[in-house]
């Protein structure tokens, strides 16, 4: 008997089941098909404008920073201003995402914009979020050539563009949108939920920012001002 069969048989023996019982199988199939939501915190049950305000507060509460821009055309200028304010080279790495490619980068002629995944040598990365979650100030990132996952983790400074219309109240709403985009039961290779910059409290429980991932996380929230 393979180890797989040994483990499954011993689970079934302990549960006193054969694995063939129709009602059990139905219950499991129903749960996966229906994916019931459970308890949803009321804090994000707000009109969209207030969800956006909650999102902004929660990002800051998680030690991230945020710029709220009226229009996507302001993004190149905001990226350059972020880098200048921190005395960083005017250089940023991004993925192929058309929503980033279409931004008016020529309005910032001194800003170098590179395209591709990160090999750890870049100080600043820019990604486009799939969604933002108001209840905890979380940005949801999906992998792929548009927004390679290495950009989320390797640069010292991670800038994330979140469109106001992509801000939802809760995780569950984000899952609904993901299912709509990828099909039920299907996921991109990596989904990263990011809530603030990297940190560690492993030395004497002192909280320090910038452990292995980005030392700072900056959200560019666009629209809905």
């Amino acid at each position, binding site marked *: 008997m393979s180890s797989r069969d040994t483990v499954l048989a011993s*689970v079934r023996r302990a549960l006193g089941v054969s694995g063939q019982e129709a009602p059990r199988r139905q219950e499991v199939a129903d749960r996966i098909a229906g994916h019931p939501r459970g308890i949803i915190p009321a804090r994000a049950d707000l009109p969209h404008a207030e969800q956006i305000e909650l999102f902004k507060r929660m990002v800051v509460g998680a030690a991230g920073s945020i710029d709220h821009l009226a229009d996507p055309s302001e993004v190149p200028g905001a990226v350059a201003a972020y880098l200048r304010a921190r005395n960083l080279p005017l250089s940023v790495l991004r993925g192929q995402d058309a929503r980033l490619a279409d931004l008016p980068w020529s309005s910032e002629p001194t800003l170098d914009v590179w395209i591709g995944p990160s090999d750890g040598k870049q100080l600043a990365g820019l990604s486009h979020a799939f969604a933002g979650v108001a209840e905890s100030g979380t940005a949801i990132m999906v992998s792929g050539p548009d927004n390679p996952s290495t950009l989320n983790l390797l640069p010292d400074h991670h800038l994330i563009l979140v469109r106001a219309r992509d801000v939802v109240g809760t995780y569950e709403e984000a899952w609904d949108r993901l299912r709509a985009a990828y099909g039920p039961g299907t996921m991109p290779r990596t989904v990263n939920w990011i809530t603030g910059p990297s940190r560690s409290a492993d030395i004497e429980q002192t909280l320090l920012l910038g452990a292995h991932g980005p030392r700072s996380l900056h959200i560019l929230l666009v629209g809905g001002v």
Partner: protein
Amino acid sequence: MSVQITSPRFKDNARHALDDAPLQAALSKVGPGFIGRRTAARDLLPEFDALRDSARDIKNHTLAHLDLYLERFEAKVKEAGGHVHFAVDAAEAREIVTRICRDRGAKTVTKGKSMVSEEIGLNDHLVACGIEPVETDLGEYLIQIRGEAPSHIIAPAIHLNKDQVEADFRRVHTHLPPERNLTEPTALLAEARGELRAKFLAADVGITGANFLVAETGTSIIVTNEGNGDLTQTLPGTHIVLASLEKLVPTLEDVSQLLRVLARSATGQEMSVYTTFSTGPRRPQDLDGPGEYHVVILDNGRSAMLAGQLREMLRCIRCGACMNHCPVYHAVGGHAYGWVYPGPMGAVLTPSLIGIEKGANLPNASTFCGRCEEVCPVRIPLPKLMRHWREKEFERHLTPAPVRYGLGIWSFVARRGWLYRPATDLAMRLLAMAGRAKGRFASLPLAGGWTKVRDFPAPQGGTFQAQWKARKSGRAS
């Protein structure tokens, strides 16, 4: 680390821990920090307790249907192009991992924090096979370079102070200038970041644990604050997930319920910094991510726990709240428990996994104050389960002879009311008289084992039976 089991020597371990001044200084910070942060996070979320009920129910439902969720998970991982391996015990899990590493000619592997890796003693095995494991969680890295085991499930190096860390870095990072300044914790963190960055980029295989496995989608999930586990599973060509079989949850909605109580219970955060969902290997168009994805699902005694009371322990989501709130853990720290899982959760889990013969002492490492159960996000009745082990221990004659004789005499007397009442009444009066001055005893004949390390309160009123009688007759005392 080594998985040498010292649980049978719990009492000696505890005594040494109590005499270890630096350890006591480190432990004194455990309670205030963790407890306050958890309470603050709980108070910010009115639905917190309702979410704990929901978390408990999700885990109960999953465990009752575990065979079917395991099958579904396996099918979905395969569908996404990944591999699932089942391991009956620790030796088989180690073998699977080393075979994958060898087949890929791996020289170094980076590791995200994984308690299952500690449980199966993976690092020693990899070293013996000529493969260098590099722990990347800062706390795990610290204990790896010290050759120690973790002393806490979410803060593995909580027993260390920064001077010890500085000394270790100077000892190990000999290629760095000796005159560098490492007095500030930020300098220590920056040095670790620099050292490990190079390892992340060079590793052939990345091994992580899993906080959850999602049956709906065939997804493994890790939760970190550092981003180390996330780099571990993104950069190398092969990603291996080590998970025990109770990590299954049905759906993405179910895991969202559990995530809402995990970080709040563990560190008091609203949400951990990185929650990373991995499904299969990189896709054809992807520009990064591992080319291969393996999940090793470990049983190692857990399936047997499904049969009885101990099934409840399999709800555990490894948040650490029970040890953060445990007076015994605060007093002796994690290493005294003698294996990889400390605190109340370890006191219940360890005997299940390594056998009651070796773990018999641990369920006694409790004052039965009940705080662990009060804070557990999946409402595991830890004191009840410790009592279950104590009964087993007694039945199997693993209890020391004086205790057995003592309990024998007590039960003889207790079953005879005419003897019990006057006997306890007399004992009570004597104790109350003797302890009147301070209200507590610093030492007590026949109870030296208790009073050496903690005071015994002097009785404040009559016996329980006398008080009960008084209450029943309406004269509240």
